[in-house]
């Protein structure tokens, strides 16, 4: 009897999770699994590794490579600039009146991605943008002559920085504020210079946070589709745009190859996010 009650009780407990499991199962996990499994299947339904091997074409490899390059560089620069700004804000003796609006702005800018962001940059440093025209008419500098083109890898990186830097500021500021005064004072008493304090105390503590955030920024840029499409149209060959074209019109001429392309993207963002979570757990040990 008691056992029967226990079973009913357990069953009742699980009932409360059914809607959540049903929803995420049907609309998050099943579609993803379908793609992953499809990457290892022949059109007839058998198991194969051929789709993965078929990714080895110049177009697809270069799409992945350009994507990785754009994501990595925008993550790296976003980290460096974001860190510099956050450090200036928290440690540089700048009044709090700057900090609060800057944090609010970071919240807005980190969410201002996609199509409108591309428009903003086209209006600024595009072929007829504000800065481009200003430099040409007032200073006689033709940016095009210097090889500048917004619809390029570097154009994409500079545009992505608009949401990468704020995201870094939002995540790293609490970590910087978590640096305890006592650590600084202890280092001072032991005769450490400023540089030594940073090299041997502060940076080792912050390092997991910084590296982890960089992994997050990388994944963030890697999955960005809308900004890239609105900025460059189909002209730039990067992984998300290639996948977009494949879903729309099977440009690769092989549906299962499309699955493999998507699987590769999951693998890359998955690895970056795992790195982020692992490093974040490490970082939290110090910043309690």
């Amino acid at each position, binding site marked *: 009897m008691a056992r029967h009650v226990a079973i009913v009780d357990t069953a009742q407990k699980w009932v409360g999770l059914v*809607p959540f499991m049903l*929803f995420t199962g049907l*609309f998050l996990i099943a579609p993803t699994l379908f793609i992953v499994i499809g990457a290892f299947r022949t059109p007839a339904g058998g198991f194969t590794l051929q789709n993965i091997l078929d990714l080895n074409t110049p177009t697809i490899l270069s799409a992945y490579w350009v994507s990785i390059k754009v994501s990595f560089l925008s993550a790296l620069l976003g980290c460096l600039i974001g860190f510099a700004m956050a*450090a200036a804000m928290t440690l540089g003796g700048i009044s709090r009146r700057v900090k609060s609006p800057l944090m609010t702005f970071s919240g*807005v800018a980190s969410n201002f991605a996609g199509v409108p962001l591309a428009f*903003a940059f086209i209006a600024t440093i595009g072929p007829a943008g504000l800065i481009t025209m200003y430099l040409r008419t007032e200073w006689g500098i033709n940016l095009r002559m210097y090889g500048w083109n917004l619809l390029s890898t570097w154009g994409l990186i500079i545009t992505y920085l608009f949401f990468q*830097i704020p995201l870094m500021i939002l995540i790293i500021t609490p970590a910087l504020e978590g640096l305890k005064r006592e650590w600084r004072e202890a280092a001072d008493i032991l005769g450490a210079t400023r540089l030594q304090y940073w090299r041997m105390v502060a940076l080792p503590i912050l390092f997991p946070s910084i590296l982890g955030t960089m992994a997050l920024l990388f994944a963030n840029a890697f999955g960005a589709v809308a900004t890239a*499409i609105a900025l460059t149209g189909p002209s730039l060959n990067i992984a998300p745009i290639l996948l977009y074209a494949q879903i729309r019109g099977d440009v690769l001429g092989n549906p299962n190859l499309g699955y493999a392309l998507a699987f590769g993207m999951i693998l890359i963002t998955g690895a970056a996010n795992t790195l982020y979570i692992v490093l974040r757990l490490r970082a939290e040990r110090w910043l309690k």
Partner: protein
Amino acid sequence: MTRFAAWAAIISGCLYFLMPMIGMTEFSLSMRRGVYSLDAYRVVMADPQFQATFAYSLIMALLTIVFGVLLVVPTAYWVQLKMPRMRPVVEFVTLLPLVIPAIVVVFGYIRLYNTSGWLPLTGSVTGTNLLLMFGYATLALPYMYRAVDTGLRSIDVATLTEAAQSLGAGWFRIMATLILPNVLSAVLSGAFLTLAIVIGEFTMAALLDRPAFGPYMQILGANRAYEPAALAVIAFAITWACMGLIQMVSRLSKHKRA
């Protein structure tokens, strides 16, 4: 010296952020030659396509918010009350949308829920709209769950539930009159963030072929010069408003508690 470096970092950073803001505003105002005018805004606002797609996205956002709240609040409550051991699993699942790119999820939808599948959602307009809303709900899931979960942790769920039950309240009553009001500020934060995400979303709407605001902006961007800048200003204002509302809500709720 360090203070100088700090100011230099802040100012050069702010310059980078200001440039595109100024650029898009200036561009959006210069449709008429030689003078600043609001012509671009007027043209955009008068475009029936703009009104239709904007209304569509707004309704989708509201539906997504309602669905998200109905899904997330009971789930987070239940996990907290009855199955704290499942918390890491549920939390992990809610974070998955940050790991799996949206374009992959929607790719799966198209292949799994097409007319030859067992659940042919893309076969009808209502079905596709529903599918898009589910897609948006997955996009919003990480933010919504986090906000609500944090809100629930700050109240004593078990005691409140027992008190309500001993007074004779059923589950529905507990959710509607006890839990929801207590996490209202968290729910509102999640709701405004969802609105900011959904209103200009491009990838899912475009691939499911729905007449949403994101794809409309992209098409306009490919064909016009000044109107896209006006749209960018409008979109930025919406994002700003959403974030401002989130801050206001959290500030108000802090006041109440203090």
